[in-house]
């Protein structure tokens, strides 16, 4: 693995020509009267990692949460624009089906107050899966690099795990329904470096089979693990490019100022 953020395939210089999982056009988002996102246009390529960086409050999480319509759970919000998932309008889709295809991992680990097995199996059960749960649970826990640590205590409460293990459990839970996209909202911000490395390793292994969009405060993490990076500032998309190029030769002076630490 090269030290700078390597694109998924050598030679990729932009998202042009790649199949797109998400195509977001003219996205405007409002919290009541206050506008939070201004006219965002972004292409998220299939089976690549796209990172969203920017200072606190710039709208990264707001933008991410719109991709699986989680913002609808907040009252008095309004979305204008178009989000296409594989060509289908996300806003016209059944929201339950959408969220089965687009999974999410949150900033703070939030396992259910159930056993480890029940946590991972929850998504499968509510989507009507009636096949062999045990195999699916094991597969998800293996993908989240948690199986070896919990295989003897699947019936124990999820709260008995450490913070890093709980977050990996949440990832396993999200992966259990085989989503096409995984949205990660600062998944490692509450975790120690060892667990962070494990999660980045996990993302690397998922790259060929799952589209990932990760919001991160940690620029080095974005540089390490993503193929494409988008820089947001005050609700606007400033720059979106291949990670290595954005971090070495950013086109916009604001991007450069942020990356070199002059603000944010």
């Amino acid at each position, binding site marked *: 693995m090269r030290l700078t953020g390597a694109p998924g395939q050598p030679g990729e210089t932009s998202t042009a020509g790649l199949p797109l999982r998400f195509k977001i056009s003219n996205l405007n988002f409002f919290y009541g009267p206050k506008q939070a996102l201004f006219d965002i246009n972004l292409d998220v390529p299939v089976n690549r990692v796209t990172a969203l960086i920017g200072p606190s409050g710039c709208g990264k999480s707001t933008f991410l949460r719109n991709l*699986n319509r989680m913002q609808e*759970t907040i009252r008095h919000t309004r979305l204008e624009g178009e989000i296409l998932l594989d060509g289908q309008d996300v806003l016209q889709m059944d929201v339950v089906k959408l*969220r089965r295809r687009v999974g999410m991992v949150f900033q703070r680990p939030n396992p259910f*107050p159930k056993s480890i097995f029940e946590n991972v199996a*929850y998504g499968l059960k*509510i*989507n009507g899966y009636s096949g062999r749960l045990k195999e699916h649970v094991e597969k998800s826990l293996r993908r989240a690099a948690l199986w070896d640590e919990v295989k003897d205590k699947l019936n124990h409460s999820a*709260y008995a*795990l450490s913070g890093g293990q709980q977050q990996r459990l949440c990832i396993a839970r999200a992966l259990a*329904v085989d989503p096409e996209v995984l949205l990660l909202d600062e998944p490692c911000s509450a975790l120690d470096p060892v667990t962070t490395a494990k999660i980045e390793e996990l993302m690397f292994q998922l790259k060929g089979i799952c589209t990932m969009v990760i919001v991160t405060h940690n620029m080095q993490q974005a540089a390490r693990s993503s193929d494409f990076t988008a820089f947001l500032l005050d609700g606007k998309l400033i720059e979106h490019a291949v990670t290595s190029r954005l971090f070495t030769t950013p086109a916009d002076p604001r991007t450069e100022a942020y990356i070199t630490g002059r603000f944010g």
Partner: protein
Amino acid sequence: MTEPYNGGINAAPQTPSPGSIAVKLRMFWRKSLNLVMLSITAACALLTVSVLALILGYLVWHGGSSLSWNFFTKLPAPVGETGGGLANAIVGSGKLLLIASLIGIPIGLMGGVYLAEFGGRTFPFMVRYATDLLNGVPSIIIGIFAYTVVVVPMHHFSTLAGGCALGIIMIPIAVRSTEEFLRAVPRGLREAAMALGASKWRTVATVVVPAAFQGILTGLMLDVARVAGETAPLLFTAFSNRYWSPGWNQPIASLPVMIYTYAIGPYEEWHQQAWAAGLVLMGLVLLANIGARIVLSRRASFSRS
């Protein structure tokens, strides 16, 4: 180097020198005031605890001797005969609380779920306000209401009427305590379930309510314990009964009403039985309270510190 300026904020504060009479008096006044206030507040706290201790003490002292196997198994005996008990009142209270729970618990639970999870601004506000008002309605008025609505059409007192009255009293507390415990469930759990594709109702039923379950259970236990001691509404709904009350359509004896009847009666045996009944009732309430504390203390915390 210039002299430091001795006026303005650099000026020496205008206090008398330490050791002077004025300072000593002020210190004495402050310390005494401190001591007096501490004593008053401690005394009031002690008074509160001692009231409870006195009540329990009286009950145990006067009623303990009358507690016997007969008390729990026999019907009231004719005056002058020994060996009677209040078995019908104990069972009667049990039956009344059963009906009250069947009315109060589902309505309270569902109402609490609605207030905590669904709804906008005005309607939940009105519901909450109405619930709080209902909580403040004197229990005797709820008894009159149950009399008008259940006893009069049925043309006689009944367990059903008594249970209805107690159930109505149970509703507001159940609603509010359920709502409080549901609100205490962190938002992250709901979001996690919804992000997996669970609908709102599914999230509530399979994640939020189980997460709040222990709290809700204790709230309901305390609710039942509270209505167990309500006397006024039973006076003209369940009335009373010196014998067993089969079914649900007959008047029925209950502990609080028996305490009332026996305590103001002229016979010494009755007074003894009233003390014993009071002890049993108090024991029930204490058991529910302590049980609730134990259940709550074993609650798993939501986050690892």
